[in-house]
């Protein structure tokens, strides 16, 4: 990717004088995930990194920077979050300069850290073909993609930023991941209703209610007005009962219904590794069937719950 990163740096240098800031990634404290870099000074452009460690979806910063001229670097899935923000008029197209890239997949730091044993001296990460390659303290290591990438990459619907002002590098296909493990949704489908309830009960017992899932979600824009914090009405109580934590997950899923692009940030941010994107995936499947709609694909389309049809093509009401 060496050429892409050089092209990216020069494109950003060229655009920076007209912009208040450019958001990209730089090496951070964690060797397996790069950290956001907010560039206002040309000298910082040299710190930019671009490889499968650029996991964080930077689009989430945009609503908070509304009114400023912001440049942003995006992967395919990040671009879908950005499109969704445009659809909801939470950001203004003319104020955003998008630098799009072809993504080869984003590493899932947790399992990779385990598989590599130590990440001390991790020098490089790259995906080529069906393999993720790591150089750790001079030694080359490989992992199959199914063990190295985030689950969202297994079903990536487009690894190139489709809406952008500057596309850097070559276009390409999403990673071809084989031998993927069973998804949580598939596991749930094999369970009875009662088992599903207890599955979530067990998961939620581990939830520490840190709300990192909410903070990381680019579409959770309510800030201090989140229903989870409201006392009137009191949607969730303050106990650590799994019921209350599941209630919060239902709030997040329903508040992102028809909006969630499956960027995977909620799950990636969760310190307990809980499979919470599953709920949103289930809603997305049914939203696709009901409204023939996929979030974050068309900047001019309204999200399905923002509107209605008098005759709904795919809704079959129950006959009594």
């Amino acid at each position: 990717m060496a050429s892409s990163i050089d092209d990216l740096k020069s494109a950003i240098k060229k655009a920076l004088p007209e912009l208040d800031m450019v958001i990209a990634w730089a090496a951070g404290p964690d060797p397996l995930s790069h950290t956001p870099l907010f560039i206002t000074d040309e000298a910082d452009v040299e710190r930019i990194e671009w490889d499968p460690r650029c996991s964080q979806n930077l689009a989430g910063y945009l609503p908070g920077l509304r009114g400023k001229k912001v440049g942003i670097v995006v992967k395919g899935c990040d671009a879908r979050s950005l499109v969704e923000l445009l659809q909801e008029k939470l950001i203004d197209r003319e104020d955003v300069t998008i630098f799009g890239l072809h993504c080869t997949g984003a590493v899932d730091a947790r399992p990779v850290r385990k598989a590599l044993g130590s990440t001390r001296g991790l020098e490089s990460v790259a995906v080529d073909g069906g393999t993720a390659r790591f150089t750790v303290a001079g030694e080359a290591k490989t992992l199959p993609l199914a063990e190295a990438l985030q689950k969202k990459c297994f079903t990536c619907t487009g690894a190139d930023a489709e809406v952008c002002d500057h596309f850097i590098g070559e276009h390409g296909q999403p990673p071809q991941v084989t031998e993927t493990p069973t998804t949580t949704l598939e596991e749930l489908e094999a369970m009875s209703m009662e088992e599903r309830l207890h599955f979530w009960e067990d998961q939620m017992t581990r939830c520490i209610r840190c709300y990192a899932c909410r903070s990381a979600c680019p579409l959770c824009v309510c800030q201090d007005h989140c229903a989870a914090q409201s006392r009137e009405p009191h949607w969730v109580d303050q106990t650590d009962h799994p019921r209350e934590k599941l209630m919060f997950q239902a709030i997040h899923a329903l508040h992102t219904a028809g909006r969630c692009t499956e960027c995977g940030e909620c799950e990636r941010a969760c310190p307990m590794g809980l499979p919470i994107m599953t709920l949103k995936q289930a809603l997305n499947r049914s939203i696709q069937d009901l409204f023939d709609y996929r979030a974050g694909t068309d900047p001019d389309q309204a999200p399905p719950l923002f509107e209605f049809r008098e005759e709904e093509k795919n809704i079959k009401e129950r006959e009594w």
Partner: protein
Amino acid sequence: MSVNEGKELRIIGFLCNWCSYAGADTAGVGRFAQPTDLRIVRLPCTGRINPLFIVRAFMNGADGVLVSGCHPRDCHYSEGNFYARRRLEVLKALLPVIGVDPGRFEYTWVSASEGQRWRSVVTSFTEQVHALGPMPGFKSGTSLDMCLCHLDQPQVR
């Protein structure tokens, strides 16, 4: 007469003021026999129904939830029920994933004059929920509850 001799279940009905609540009233005034498990919450419009009302009802132990409003094109506020229909369809996708049987939730339309129809909706829905039985509860409680119950188990040190 109750369809379910003796044991009632907790069924919550969210009804709009203008059609279904009046329809339920029509059924009452007509003295139609109907099961008595349903507890009605009256709302101005089905468009006022936050799908979270229904999730919260299930989390708090409801065995079934029924939503009823004006027929499409008859909404007092013109479009409330059209928005509701989309939201409630999406909710239908969420409930089974978190372990609430899809048969425990229905939405429908009953007008103010349809007392008979109201009766048959309530009767069929109540029977449907009874066939499923009570909603399974959570096994554990808060972490404190769990610590307290471990105190009684000598093998846990």
